[in-house]
């Protein structure tokens, strides 16, 4: 409202007008300082140290088969986990929003558990469950399926940590969905499958993609819950954060820094994508 009035009234550049609310300089200054001290400067240091390693070292690290394998493992399994979370997250959000069943509110509350549960706790719990001596691992082992210590184990851990993301981003959109459109489509003779695919699903896509990317980003960097259930075998079950730790332990600080910088670049790209998608979602919802 006020913005509209201002636009009409004064053609001065927006950020030069006198502000009604006080504290702009102070709060922005504090925000930037705090952020710089805790996050930005340390990350810049990382980049500078990595850059100081020189291009030959970068290239050696980038093309090292072990690094490439770790990339593949981390990104590949995180991608699969995010896909699983997208599919099941959509299903769970649907079931929670559209249906009524006993215990629905309890289930809804439980979804946030991976957000609040420490990763180490998740790690030992999942390792215990899915080992060949565990509750789930033992019956599966009878079929020859091994989960702990295989890439499947990492998949399980990453699905766990990413579980709430898709559900929580899709739920509000589903809730706000206009039932009138569904009713109109039904009245016009569309059958349910058609309604689901053409009327209900499209508005969910931005939220779904946002949730997927959030789960993906989380899964790539995950450490605590994975190392208890992964086998740490180079090329098969060695994740990138673990490779960083191993390089540190081998006194290869430069190598560790280079890999960390690469992960950081990937994180930044994903973050940018997430913010774009969230903006898209907000615009779609407002429309």
């Amino acid at each position: 409202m006020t913005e509209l009035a201002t636009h009409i009234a004064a053609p001065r550049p927006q950020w030069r007008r006198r502000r009604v609310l006080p504290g702009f300089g102070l709060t922005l200054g504090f925000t930037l300082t705090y952020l710089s001290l805790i996050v930005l400067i340390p990350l810049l240091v990382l980049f500078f140290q990595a850059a100081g390693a020189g291009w030959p070292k970068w290239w050696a690290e980038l093309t090292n088969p072990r690094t490439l394998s770790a990339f593949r493992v981390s990104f590949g399994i995180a991608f699969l986990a995010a896909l699983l979370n997208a599919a099941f997250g959509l299903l769970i959000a649907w079931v929670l929003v559209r249906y009524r069943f006993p215990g629905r509110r309890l289930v809804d509350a439980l979804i946030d558990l991976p957000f609040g549960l420490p990763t180490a706790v998740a790690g030992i719990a999942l390792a215990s469950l899915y080992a060949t001596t565990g509750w789930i691992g033992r019956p599966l082992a009878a079929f020859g399926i091994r989960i702990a210590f295989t890439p499947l184990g990492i998949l399980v851990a990453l699905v766990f940590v990413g579980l709430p993301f898709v559900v929580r981003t899709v739920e509000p959109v589903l809730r706000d969905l206009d039932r009138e459109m569904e009713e109109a489509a039904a009245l016009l003779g569309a059958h349910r499958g058609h309604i689901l695919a053409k009327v209900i699903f499209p508005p969910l896509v931005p939220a779904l993609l946002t949730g997927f990317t959030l789960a993906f980003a989380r899964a790539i960097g995950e450490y605590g819950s994975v190392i208890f259930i992964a086998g740490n075998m180079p090329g098969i079950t060695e994740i990138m954060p673990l490779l960083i730790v191993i390089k540190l332990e081998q006194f290869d600080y430069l190598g560790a820094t280079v890999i960390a910088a690469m992960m950081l670049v990937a994180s930044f790209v994903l973050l940018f994508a997430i913010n774009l998608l969230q903006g898209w979602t907000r615009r779609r919802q407002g429309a």
Partner: protein
Amino acid sequence: MQIPRVALSVLALFTGLQVLASSQGIADSTLLNVSYDPTRRFYAAVNKAFAARWEAEQGEAVRVYQSHGGSGAQARAVIYGLEADVVTLALASDIDAIASRAALLPKEWQRRLPQNSAPYTSTIVFVVRKGNPKDILDWPDLLKPGVQIITPNPKTSGGARWNYLAAWGHALRHNQNDEGKAWDFVGALYRNAPVLDTGARGSTITFVRRGIGDVLIAWENEALVAANEVAKGDLEIVVPSLSVLAEPPVALVDKVVDRRGTRALAQAYLDFLYTPEGQTIAAEHYLRPTLPEVAARFADRFPKLELLTIADFGGWAVAQKTHFGDGGIFDQIYKPGS
């Protein structure tokens, strides 16, 4: 929700003071012993006995803090500033790294204490399931088809490097020192390892608790603790024909003890490890004592086998560079994903 600002600032002040207080670190009658993975129970017992003795002799209460982890990881931590008064690691190469990369102790540290600064020794043995179903009796049996071997990652674990050298030594011995054959043997061994944990203790847990693998190559003391205490009755120890004498060394970290003024205390702590009391505690925790009278007393606790020493591999400086350094033999044998 309207917590008064005063209360918040008091809380902030209090936590600030707490932080300051704890950042001053450990007070003067304390020591930090940075050790490798399998020695937790051993040093818990040593610290108790040493504290009692020091109090009786000097009238001062002392507390020894412990930090445990893979030997390589712990060395890294000390290089990066973990204020260890003493380090008690798995192999000399890790302490050499502390000396060369951080100059925290002199390069000749190993000569300052008896027996190459190793108050106790150990060796490498095999652990198998009850009844030895795969019939593992010696090194060549490890390569039988279908046998899965559990051993840690030599890049991070000290024990893993002793394991590797024992395997290499055996292969050389039985192939007339043909390095190519040794290469093949060790390579095949690691290809049959489904999991490489970052530390010796991790491998033991994988084998014992998670039930993965048919044979575990482990420190003797790790194996004995697992077989006699943790999984009593479920495991058997198999002693190979040839193994390596593992000498986990101990050292004073000069720069730290001088800064903290704990040199006398730290020296006494290390000396305690060589006394009959210290040696007895070592034997009770399945570490081979070096003091002859204690060794004689516990002789039947430790199996007899032929042992190679690190000198047979050219010393740690050579062995570390040749086998475990970047691009060394292990890196070449063990290609990821192959």
